[in-house]
């Protein structure tokens, strides 16, 4: 498990930074919510926001007066940020060895390529899990502190779990790209277009259709507004997510076993 431990150490600092970023986003919105004056004028303003704007950020008309609707907005932003973290981590974990030319060091040690992959995959999942647990704990604390009428823990937990699902998708997708692409020169150049590409696809739901869009982008696998209002996940969508992830990981393993490792 030496590679696993090594990766946890190497990624410790960046994981702390990402966790802080996620918490900061949540803290900003949750802390100002109590001080938003509740009157009809503001509700009217929100109602008159352009539809496309509301759609982009997942805003509903009552997001300034009802906490579940505000939390849906918070989650949308957190999902997007968390997706970038996961995609970066997934893409870089294998590709960095080629980019930094350390693959030669690692792969001439008595360790199989499959073992390298599975230790690294396990390490990135652990890092995401740690990020999410820290985020959940602080987030729940913030809600308890600032919100007079917070929702049930169950609703909080189920809706926030969407972060882990979205990140798991991007982690596997990044992992696939990081192993399959011959050389990833810059992780950001791969991860940002991927994450924002999927996000933009998610905004086209009226064009593509509510039912089809679910299968096209992880951001629409579930409806965050439904979740924060006490709804739950569709089982078939979770199965679909699992199938995609397993497919990505298996493909990475098969391709990486046969890949030539070049130095230059």
């Amino acid at each position: 498990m030496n590679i696993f431990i090594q990766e946890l150490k190497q990624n410790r600092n960046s994981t702390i930074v990402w966790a802080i970023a996620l918490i900061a986003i949540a803290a900003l919105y949750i802390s100002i919510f109590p001080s938003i004056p509740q009157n009809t004028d503001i509700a009217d303003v929100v109602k008159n926001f352009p539809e496309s704007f509301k759609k982009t950020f997942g805003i509903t008309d009552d997001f300034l007066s009802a906490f579940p609707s505000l939390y849906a907005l918070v989650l949308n932003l957190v999902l997007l940020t968390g997706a970038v973290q996961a995609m970066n981590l997934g893409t870089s974990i294998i590709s960095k060895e080629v980019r930094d030319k350390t693959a030669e060091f690692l792969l001439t040690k008595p360790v199989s390529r499959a073992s390298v992959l599975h230790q690294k995959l396990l390490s990135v999942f652990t890092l995401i899990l740690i990020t999410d647990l820290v985020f959940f704990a602080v987030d729940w604390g913030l809600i308890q502190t600032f919100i007079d009428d917070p929702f049930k823990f169950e609703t909080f937990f189920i809706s926030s779990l969407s972060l882990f699902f979205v990140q798991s998708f991007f982690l596997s997708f990044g992992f696939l790209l990081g192993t399959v692409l011959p050389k990833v020169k810059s992780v950001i150049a791969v991860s940002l277009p991927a994450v924002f590409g999927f996000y933009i696809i998610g905004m086209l739901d009226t064009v593509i259709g509510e039912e089809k869009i679910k299968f096209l982008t992880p951001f629409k696998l579930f409806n965050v507004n439904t979740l924060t209002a006490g709804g739950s996940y569709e089982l078939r969508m979770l199965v679909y997510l699992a199938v995609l992830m397993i497919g990505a990981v298996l493909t990475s393993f098969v391709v990486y076993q046969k890949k030539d490792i070049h130095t230059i």
Partner: protein
Amino acid sequence: MSIIETKNLTKYYGKSKGIKDVSLSVHKGEILGFIGPNGAGKSTTIRILLSLIYPTSGSATIFGKDVIQYGPEIKRDIGYLPSEVFYYDKMRVKELLEYSASFYKKDCSGRIKEISGLLNLDLTKKIDDLSYGNKKKVGIVQGLLHSPELIFLDEPTGGLDPLIQKNFFELLKEENRAGKTIFFSSHILSEVQKICDRVAIIKDGELINIESMEHLIQNNYKRIHLTTKEKAKSELFKLPGVSDLKVEKNQVGFLYKGDVNTISRIIAQIDLVDFMVGEPDLEEIFMHYYR
């Protein structure tokens, strides 16, 4: 027993040839020099043996086991120093060596101390802050810290100062006396001459020759260059063993193979300003030795 055995090993990178039909065997306890100019296929051969890349055709075994099928198992007893060393920049030397040691199921701390002491390597520095030569030393330590049975060296001396080079060669000889087999790839003939028992010569991806060091030295060419006071008569040098003769103004240059006494008597007849005997470079060896 052969430690390394390759059969018709061939590697194409797309359409361009890496190596073709390389068949060689390395015996236990020998130091095999593997020489050839840059791009001849030295690194390609080593990288196939380490299963970093896969051959297009042919096969290779190390310790009698197929390098692809038993890669991880074989590598327990292999040490490798790549031609260009790259390590995790943010780590300290000590951390990197400990990480490297963690792959082998034995205690390597004594050996780390011993070798890095011999090479004068500071263990507390960050990898990023090291000079090229010092990174190379890290490479040597990480390649040898687990006392491997087979050591691959890919152009190992670049960046090392003469004193450290000497220590490094001593270390290799010591390992060799203890029965370790060494595969020494280089494009510097003198380096190979110093240490190797046998030499394999590779050119354009194909193995040209493999023979003992003694034989290679017996047949060795010298590059001789003279600066004379007056233009020398070129007839003087028309004797067996002289080739590539050029006489221009007061300059004479040629390759010589044969008894040095014969040639020194001839040179003694000339009024000299300067006199130089050197090793021909590898290209010249290839051109004249194997024509």
